[in-house]
Structure formats: structure tokens, C-alpha cells
């Protein structure tokens, strides 16, 4: 199974979770997603997702001057973003449970 296909459906949730953990700028978010284990996440996908979530009002942004290089745009989760993170998390857990159940059964059958 192609992990990038799976990732597409849950990237919103992953980005929201990372930013909810701590305000971050784009590059930082990409790095934290990769560090968490999402090796395949594309830089462009993350930036596109950030823009969409920002447009949807799930994220707010502020600029922090940087000593080295250009200013950095930090993202923070808005209350609306937190709400959709909670809903998304619930949906994901249910989905994961169902799939775990299915896979567990088939494993038993295979054994």
C-alpha cells in the first residue's frame, strides 16, 4: 500500500496536531512531521495544507523576525482549529479501531 495515499487523507490532522503541540513555522513543521515518522511527507504538501487550513480559519499566523535570514511566519491553532482537531482525532481513532479489528481478525484467520 502506498503510504502517500494514506497520508493525503490525514495530513490536515497531522499538521493541526503538530501546530497544536507548539506554534511553528513551515520548515519546522515539515521537520517535526518527518521526525515523528512521516518520512514521505512532501514539503509542498505541507505548505499547501498550511495555506488551506489558514484560509479555513483553523490556523492563525504571526511573523517573527529572525537573526539569520528572512522573517519566519509562525502558525498557531485557532479555537476553530482545535475543534476540528478534536473531531478529526475522534474520527481517526474510530477508523483505526475498525481497521485494527479487521486486520486482527484476518491475522487470526491466517494463523
Amino acid at each position, binding site marked *: 500500500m502506498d503510504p502517500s495515499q494514506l497520508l493525503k487523507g490525514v495530513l490536515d490532522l497531522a499538521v493541526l496536531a503538530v501546530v497544536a503541540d507548539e506554534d511553528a513555522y513551515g*520548515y519546522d513543521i515539515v521537520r517535526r512531521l518527518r521526525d515523528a515518522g512521516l518520512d514521505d511527507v*512532501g514539503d*509542498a*504538501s505541507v*505548505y*499547501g495544507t498550511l*495555506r488551506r487550513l489558514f484560509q479555513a480559519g483553523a490556523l492563525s499566523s504571526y511573523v517573527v523576525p529572525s537573526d539569520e*535570514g*528572512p522573517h519566519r*511566519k509562525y502558525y498557531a491553532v485557532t479555537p476553530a482549529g482545535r475543534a476540528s482537531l478534536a473531531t478529526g482525532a475522534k474520527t481517526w481513532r474510530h477508523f483505526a479501531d475498525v481497521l485494527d479489528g479487521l486486520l486482527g481478525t484476518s491475522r487470526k484467520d491466517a494463523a
Partner: protein
Amino acid sequence: MSATTTTDATDRADAYLAQVRRHLATLTDDERDDLLDDLTAHVHEVAASRHGPLVDVLGTPETFAAELLAAAGLAPTGSAGPGGAARHTAASLVSWTSTVRSHPWTRAVADFLPELRPAWWVARGWLLVYGLWLIGAEDRGSLPLPELFDSALLGVIAAVAASVVSVRLARRSSPPRYLIVIDLLAVVAALVLLLRVDDLATGPTVDYVGYQGAPVASGTLAHADGSPITNIHAYGADGEPLEQVRLFDQHGRPIEIHDATGEWGEPLVSEVVVGADGLPAANVYPLDQYALTWDNVRQAETRVPVPDPVLQLAPLPPTTASSTTTTSPTATTAPDRAATTTEPPPVGAGPPPGS
């Protein structure tokens, strides 16, 4: 990090960003700047942290742009330029079409249309014959009925036959594909017919009837049968023609004839009579008229006087003394004095000169 590698990294980042920007051509400037705002810092950072081509890390600029657009929920772009823009337009057109399609009114109409199909099959055959006749006929006739070989009966028979064939073809289990062409031709014929019906409603008269039913295209008077009146010849009770008769309607408005044309469509020009007050009087009859025609021999426009009608009229019996409409012979040269109505003459109706 040395200064040279920093410069190198900046160049690589800028070059990469420029290419990504090219692949975002379908976006508005605002959208593109907004998207690239963050990315500039990011790509510079990536370039600075790694050696080697950025393509190895970020993928090709094209893939990068496509991924960016897809994730941002903007229309995907396969290529930069007008092709992408056209696709963008097509996409919004598709979404508009589906909005229209799902509208309850549209669905109500769509549900109803199949019921009308047999009526269209019949109409289609008739329209096709009508269309053929329209192409062939010089005189387009006065009825929306086709004629074949100058026979309305043959035309109607052909139309009915075509309608029967049309219905039979349509009811086949697999109607032939060329029927779509026939449908199109029938639609064209229907449009032409609509225009004809509009003509017929207006009547075959020369006058174009305006919105208030008043003649608008020309000030020309017309007989009840529609033939135009281009001049007026008044005769006295003695049966002799009158000169310089001024005509007014029931409101005292001068009756004028404008834009008159002769039998062959040639313009008729009238000499303008100017009253003693210096104002032109266009209601003085008979009009001194000539036709403007083109002389082929002399290659010049020539004026041909319009002949007066030749009439022999018997004198009328004398009216009773109380009548005020008796016209004396002297009035023929002084029509203003002959106007014996008790109302004052309308404004601008000064006596013509030479009286």
C-alpha cells in the same frame, strides 16, 4: 559555512522558486504571492542545509507546484500558461453546469421534456420540409405552410409524410445517428419560421408598426390596404384642382408626408414651401414632387417630375347657406383665408409665400 556556499545555496533556491512560480501561472498574483511567501524562506533553508541539487530533495519544480496546489485546495495545474487557464475555466464551467442541473426548476423541466418528444418528432418532419421550401422558394409566401412546385397541397402532403417517417425513425429500437443532424436543421427552420410569423403578425403592409401601433418607419400616409399615399390632390366643389391646400388633423397638427418613395423604391423629393414667417410648411398640397433616379446613360442622378393624376370631376351640388365649408374659387390661391374653421390656425401655420 563559507560565504561561497551561502551564495550558491541562495542561487539554487532562487532558481528553483522561479521555476515553481512559472508552474503556478493559473493562480492570481495574490494567491501566488501568498503561497510563495512562506516557501521562499523554506526553500532557502533547505538549500542551505543540504548540498547538491534541490530537485533531489524537493522533487521537480513542476511536481512541487502541483503538490502545492493540490494540498492548498486550488485548481491543479498541469502546465503553465493559457492551457492551464483554459482548464481552470473549464473546471468552473463544469461546476456551474452541475449547479444548474441540480436546481429543482431545471429538474422539473427535464422531467417534463421527454413527454414532449413525440410532438417534436412530428414537428421535426414538417419543419424539415418547410426549411427545404424556404431555401427553394423565391417568394416566401404569406402562410407558414410549405409549397411544393407552387402547390400548397403537395407541400402539406410532403410535410405529413416527412412527419410520419420522422416518428417511425425515432421509434426504432436504435434510432439512426443522423437524426441529430435533422434535429439541428429543424431547429434552424423553426427559428426562421418564428421570424416569419412575426412578419405575418405585422401584416403585409409597407408600414412598420411601432410599439404604440403608430407608423414609425415613415411619415407616409397609407390607404387601408397598405398602399402608400405619397401626395394629396385636393379638388374644389367645382371639380377643379386646388393649389396650396394646407391639411391639419383633428388636433390642428399638420399632416405631412415624409420619406415617400415611388413605385420602384426611388425616393420622392418635395420642394419645401416656406411661409411668410420664414418657417417651412410641409403640409401644403399637392406637394411639388420629383423622383430621384439614376441616369445610366449620363451617369448622374436626375430629377424626374412626378406627374399629376388626370381626373375629370363633376361639380358638387351647392350646399346650404349655413355651411362654412364652401370654397370660393379665389381661395385656391389663398388657402389660409379659405380655412374657415372657427379655431385659430395652429402655431407655425403662416401663409405660404406667393399667395
